């Protein structure tokens, strides 16, 4: 494997560069996926059938916590990648661990939120609106869940194998993924919750 030392570790082999470009293209597809979900949501938002309307079920507190936690986690993973670039493995691992903990926190609140919807009678089967809402949130939440496992695997690998071109590459790609989930959340926060509560 040819290693190009003029590049940051995560870009330093040809395969690494391929992986990163490939992942960007994958994110392009993910943008389309969420765009489609949003389209469905906006189309069905007002179609509540006999079920509740958005303003009746949304609660601001959990959503604010979720937002805060996720935004912070995007910041901490940025610090993690910065530490990685400086070659500081332990700092990086710490920041990654904090990121994942925040992610776990987010997920916990989201589960609470879903239980709340269930209790107020906004289930998956209630109406087109609830189905679209829970699918959109659920897809994002599912991505976060997957991210928690993925991130854990990466931490284990960095711990065991150190910062190699390969592990650095994986960590960097994972950070792209995590930031992306944050961006999607900002859209969810603004156009689903805020708009729905107004």
């Amino acid at each position, binding site marked *: 494997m040819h290693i190009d030392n003029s590049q940051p570790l995560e870009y330093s082999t040809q395969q690494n560069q*391929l992986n990163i470009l*490939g992942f960007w293209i994958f994110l392009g*597809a993910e943008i389309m996926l969420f765009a*489609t979900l949003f389209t469905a949501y906006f189309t*069905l938002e007002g179609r509540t059938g006999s079920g509740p309307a958005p303003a009746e079920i949304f609660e601001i507190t959990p959503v604010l916590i979720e937002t805060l936690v996720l935004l912070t986690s995007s910041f901490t993973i940025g610090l993690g990648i910065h530490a990685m670039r400086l070659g500081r493995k332990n700092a990086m691992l710490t920041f990654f661990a904090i990121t994942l903990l925040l992610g776990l926190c987010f997920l916990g609140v989201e589960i609470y939120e879903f239980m709340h919807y269930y209790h107020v009678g906004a289930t998956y089967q*209630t109406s087109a609106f609830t189905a679209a809402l829970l699918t959109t949130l659920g897809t994002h939440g599912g991505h976060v869940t997957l991210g928690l496992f993925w991130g854990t*695997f990466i931490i284990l690998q960095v711990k065991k194998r150190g910062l190699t071109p390969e592990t650095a590459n994986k960590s960097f790609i994972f950070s792209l993924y995590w930031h992306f989930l944050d961006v999607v959340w900002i859209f969810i926060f603004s156009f689903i919750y805020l708009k729905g509560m107004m």
Partner: protein
Amino acid sequence: MEFFERFAIPHPSPAIYASMVAIVLVSIGIVAGLTYFKKWGYLWREWLTTVDHKKIGIMYLVSALLMLFRGGADAIMMRAQLSAPDMKLLDAQHYNEIFTTHGVVMIIFMAMPFIFAFMNLIVPLQIGARDVAFPRLNALSFWLFFAGAMLFNISFVIGGSPDAGWTSYFPLAGNDFSESVGTNYYMLAIQISGIGSLMTGINMCTTILKMRAPGMTLMKMPMFTWSAFIANVIIVFAFPVLTVALIMGTTDRLFATNFFTTSNGGMDMLWANFFWIWGHPEVYILILPAFGLYSEIISTFSRRNLYGYSSMVWSMVLISLLSFLVWTHHFFTMGQGALTNSIFSITTMAIAVPTGVKIFNWLFTMWKGKIRFTVPMLYSIGFIPLFTIGGVTGVMLAMSAADYQYHNTMFLVAHFHNTIIPGVVFAMLAGLTFYWPKFFGFMLNEKIGKVTFWLLTVGFVLAFFPMYITGLDGQARRMYTYSEATGFGALNMLSFVGAALMAIGFVTIVYNVYYSFKNSSRDIGSDPWDARSLEWATHTPVPEYNFARTPQISSSETFWDSKKNGHVLFKGEIEEIHMPNNSGVPFVMGIIFFIAGFSFIFALWVPAVIGLIGIFICMAMRSFEKDHGRHISVKEIKETEEKLGGAK
């Protein structure tokens, strides 16, 4: 009992029972044959675990040809049923199932793998790469496609086929009107193979952007690679829409959600919109690589470089953009208002402009060329007028006001077959004949090939042109029978004769393979057609590393320049080559996806969850795995090159 009833076929017929027996017998035959000839090891090592883009390409090719026969069998049954008034061959339900499976099989499981076959076989060679960017992902893409295809194909012997049309419009496709598990098959089989397609899209885009040989700028890329690139960009943007639509359709059917229902706020038109936001670009995913193949073939056999290279590229870019802006022309008559209809009418017609540019470029390429009438060239020449007719009738359909007359009639069926058969199927057969020697080491027989071409062309015209007339006269699409009084009988009989000729034509392809395998010369060199682009610059058969030394590129027809203008393609010493290792994981994942998909279809939650966990475990294993591939030593390369006819 309830449990088993779900697996029973709701509308059995002798033909289905016969197929069941045939499937079982063929499977036993295959297993017995493999065991008897001790080929399990070979199969596993050389094919099931391969990550070589050429072998994956061949597997796509074989699958596509098999599916062509499955879809063709459906087609011939439909034409037979319609060949005369008041025919009793099939009943309404069977007809519904057959036009549905025909459409799905042809588009998703025949045309798609066919284009993937060519992308896999040719793109890395045309850009001078060793493989695609992610070889193992590539294998996974194939196995997901294959799992989806097999899942779809068992629908008619276990549980019943889908019957709501290949467009699966709701509420028709909902539980109320489609009670059997058929539509579940539709949702999950297409989902699984669609994930595979998306991954191919990502893989190919990365490959083409990053792995071109030195000197090959974007505007020096061979035309097929360009077309593959654009098609893959469309895949990346279109397939996620389908993914979401299918998920929603699946939950509507399995978990009683209300996305597309007609109660509780559901909206059936949302499905139609999503389906066609994917569906219209999908036809360009199929046709652009076909255009790419025609470009290669026409310039090779006109012995001229392609006329208007950059206008060819720009027209494809424009087509890809427009393809996302026209989807609503599929439901002009479903009540969306005059303004919307006008807008989509105009964007649709606009596609004719860049397409026209391409047609003229091909004509100008031939204009002063010295044409050789080989089989691939015959298809290309036949394609131009036939496809133009299909395009013109498409513009007729695009006139939204007029569409109220012929919407959902045979006119439409004639139109899209008129574009897709000369456009895509002919291109694939032309490409098949053209590239056969490169990958199999012998030429297909030209005489038999010409017979095939004429059978298909004459058959095609007879089969589909009468439908324009019956369609304008009001023969509806998807109607399983009609009365004597309509007067459609004679023209439909003609159609049936045409379809039968086409069927014979497809059989002659198989015969051609068999005959040529027995009789063709194996001494054909690496460039039997005197062709122009890079894939012909390496040996036949292509060694697994493609090129012993990386080629140096100077133009879009670098190989031609190296033959005629003294350009030196390969410089420098042979160096060690890095190649990926084989892996059984993609194949295993294909099987797991198949099992999970099947379990979802029948709402068997335990195996479904186990399947999902299995997929997760495979991904986790991949994350922890340390596989850096292997190196082929200089000595080994030299020996291989020696054996294949000396390093060039």
